[in-house]
């Protein structure tokens, strides 16, 4: 596609519900990242994929958060038993090369999925 596509754009969940957020990166992009952006804050790193391999998940806040990219393209971020503190915008970004090496690589961000947990 022309850019990084995320769905749904908006999701309202009741506390305790499970949610799944989808990211469709730019075709052929090797690297895929998930970030969480709370209101009034900058994006916080959640996890990183290189193709289908999840190389870094150090930013996932709890074991309720799970991400996958089984075929090395589309990725899904799943949040189980949502809590109010999970309310945030979840950003996906992709890049054509490994990691975010400077000079040769630029992250392209999606529009984000805004999750509101009631």
């Amino acid at each position, binding site marked *: 596609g022309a*850019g990084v596509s995320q769905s749904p754009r908006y999701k309202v969940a009741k506390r305790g519900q499970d949610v799944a957020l989808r990211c469709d990166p730019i075709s052929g992009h090797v690297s895929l*990242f998930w*970030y969480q952006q709370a209101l009034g804050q*900058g*994006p916080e*790193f959640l996890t990183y994929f290189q193709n289908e391999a999840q190389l870094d998940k150090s930013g996932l806040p709890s074991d309720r958060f799970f991400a996958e990219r089984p075929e090395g393209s589309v990725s899904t971020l799943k949040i189980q038993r949502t809590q109010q503190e999970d309310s945030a915008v979840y950003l996906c970004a992709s890049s054509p090369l490994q990691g975010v090496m400077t000079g040769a690589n630029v*992250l392209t961000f999606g529009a*984000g999925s805004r999750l509101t947990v009631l």
Partner: protein
Amino acid sequence: AQRVTQPEKLLSVFKGAPVELKCNYSYSGSPELFWYVQYSRQRLQLLLRHISRESIKGFTADLNKGETSFHLKKPFAQEEDSAMYYCARTLYNFNKFYFGSGTKLNVKP
């Protein structure tokens, strides 16, 4: 922790005035610094990166290792510069960005 600090949440200037958005980072090896911008109703996008030593839309940023700063500057602000600006850095493994909390720039007519 790898921190990026943007001390100003909001910066208001008049059109034509100089603008400086501050960014400080915690020292750790060789930093790679970036500025990202998010215009209203648009996606987060790269503005400039220190390694390129480029000027984009009239903005420049100089890495000052002594002061651990990477302030964003523009001599004459324009109304279309109004946006959220995020300073970011990577670590040596280049697998993640650390973002500051952002500064909202408001350029008044």
